[in-house]
């Protein structure tokens, strides 16, 4: 009986154009839109520091000229790309046209920098000037107090000693992949529609075929488990197709072996199914069921970073309990941690949370549905 119901549920759901559209085609379409929207940001680091185009208006040969030269002629990592102008008007024109981000102008002993707007780049240009004045002051002070040390001091300055090293993490996927993780989470939560459809087919108070079904000599547990197995399998396959599409068609890599990603997305799909069963078990009105499943999917997905990438981390730093309860955030976090840090404790925390949520919701739903009798149909 289990196999009979299982096979027919698969057929029934797979042939439903809505499920194919919402659970498979829509996420693929959206992934494609994401790819066109910001796929280039995933392949090339948009925050990569490149030499800042800057102007320099010099009135005569000044020591600052050498600073400009040294900062722009470093073949490995030039900080500036200097354009020299003979007059300030030329520099202003270039700044207004966007050819330079700012320009330095030296009048007598005073050097100032003119920029188009506030921001990190302007601050960097300002910092270069501050550093110049800073080093002048230090050399003056050392020259006054310990003149015998001045040569060593100049050598130290020229060597540009570094005191910092970056902390390196073993794996790396672009932060923009978070949008795709969130999309997979949303697709998983759409699995709740599969389970509400399945449930309506076996509930006498929902559909006519549900009435016929409940008149038949089939145990509720058999119906439910066969239906759950069918929907979880389907949603797992849909998620798998989406993952394969992202990896092989869009050529965006998850950073880990694919089987690991598929395990996580399969668990995510099961969680979406469980949410649908839970809503279907507690809510009888079809319209309200639809509204709730849509609402839960969209709100959870948004809070996991579907439209605004930073939000999941903002929540994590301020009210982490929300992420602990948000199914989409759990799945997104799981994939993110897997791709960037491997199977860390945060990865297992999210994975086990998803499994726990799935089992918990299923248990409650089964308890409600198993003994359900109707007062009216």
């Amino acid at each position, binding site marked *: *009986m289990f196999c*009979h*119901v299982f096979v*027919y549920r698969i*057929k*029934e*759901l797979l*042939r*439903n154009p809505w499920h194919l559209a919402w659970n498979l085609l829509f996420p693929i379409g959206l992934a494609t839109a994401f790819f066109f929207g910001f796929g280039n940001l995933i392949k090339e680091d948009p925050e990569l520091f490149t030499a800042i185009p800057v102007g320099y208006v010099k009135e005569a040969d000044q020591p600052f000229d050498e600073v400009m030269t040294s900062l722009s002629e470093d073949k490995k990592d030039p900080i500036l790309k200097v354009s020299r102008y003979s007059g300030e008007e030329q520099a202003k024109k270039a700044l207004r046209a966007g050819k330079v981000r700012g320009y330095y102008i030296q009048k007598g002993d005073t050097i100032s920098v003119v920029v188009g707007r506030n921001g990190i780049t302007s601050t960097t240009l300002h910092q270069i000037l501050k550093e110049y004045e800073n080093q002048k002051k230090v050399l003056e002070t050392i020259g006054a107090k310990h003149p015998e040390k001045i040569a060593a001091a100049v050598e130290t300055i020229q060597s540009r000693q570094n005191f910092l090293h970056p902390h390196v993490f073993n794996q790396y996927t672009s932060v923009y992949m978070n949008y795709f993780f969130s999309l997979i989470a949303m697709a998983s939560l759409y699995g709740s529609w599969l389970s509400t459809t399945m449930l309506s*087919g076996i509930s*006498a108070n929902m*559909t*006519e*075929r549900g*009435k*016929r*079904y*409940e*008149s*038949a*000599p*089939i*145990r509720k547990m058999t119906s439910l488990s066969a239906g759950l197995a069918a929907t979880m399998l389907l949603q797992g396959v849909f998620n798998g197709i989406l993952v394969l599409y992202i990896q092989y068609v869009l050529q965006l890599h998850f950073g880990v072996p694919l089987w690991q990603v598929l395990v996580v997305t399969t668990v995510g799909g099961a969680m979406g199914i469980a949410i649908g069963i839970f809503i279907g078990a507690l809510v009888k009105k079809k319209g309200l069921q639809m509204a709730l499943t849509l609402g839960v999917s969209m709100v959870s997905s948004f809070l996991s970073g579907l439209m605004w990438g930073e939000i999941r981390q903002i929540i994590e730093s301020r009210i982490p309990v929300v992420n602990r309860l948000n199914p989409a955030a759990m799945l997104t976090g799981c994939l993110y941690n897997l791709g960037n840090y491997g199977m860390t404790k945060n990865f297992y925390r999210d994975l086990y949370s998803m499994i726990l949520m799935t089992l918990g919701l299923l248990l409650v739903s089964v308890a409600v549905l198993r003994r359900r*009798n*109707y*007062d*009216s*149909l």
Partner: protein
Amino acid sequence: MEQTIVAIDQLVKRYREKLAVDHFSMKVMEGEILGLLGPNGSGKTTTINCLLSLLKFDKGEITVFGKPMSPEAYDLKGQIGVVPQNVAVIQTLTVAENIDFFCGLYIKDRKTRKQYVEEAIRMTGLEEYRKYYPKKLSGGLIRRLNIACGIAHKPKLIIFDEPTVAVDPQSRNAILEGIREMNRQGATIIYTSHYMEEVEELCTRIIIMDRGRNVAEGTTAQLKASLRNRETIRMEMVTCTDEMLADLKEINHVYEVKVDGECLMIRCDGGTHNLVHIMGYFAEKNIPFGRVVTELPTLNDVFLEITGKELRD
């Protein structure tokens, strides 16, 4: 001795303030076609749903095949077939798949099931449509599919809940003939409807329901015999005098004479050849008349007499 297949005793079902089934009792004997007749809202479908343990009820007992019926009585459910009022099929499965799916909930053995499915398709005349999806079928065909899904597993008790609603006459006749065939093959049938003609034509015994109660029970003949009125004669008259009305009332078995517009209505409480006697009177008195129609009583008349309203109100 005939076995009691279904016994409902003092069933009460309330929907908040409304009493949908009010101490309803009935018995269905083996091999009969029991008609459950009543207007819309009389409690027929509610009774059926309680019988199938789809609905909780407030009081009463229901036994099927001698055993108490409950949601967990899978052995009993396995012997019941249901053809619900509204079409209950899966839109994304073909005709053959629908029948196979629902049959499979009753019959585990694949070989047996395959045979039963084929027989059901043949019986309902759906051979040409086995690969069609329900949305491609006409109203009559989809009703046949609805029936096939309910009877494919050859149940001993079949419940038809208004199966011919919105069905064309040809399909309707086919459905009724199919039901008779199933009964001939040994199935006991409960047939609910608000169409008295169908129930009269098909059922061996009838229960009339109104406001959740059993208001009359018996064969068609028994129910009609319970009426005073055994024959109604309508005559289109040109003129009608009081003297004539009084004379007509004197004729044997005539108990009511009424003028209804240009029509004279004469009710007789038995007897044979009433029409001959009345025609004789008119011939004797040389009174002209128009068309004459004689009607035997219907179940509607039974219902009207018991409840004071028409079956189709």
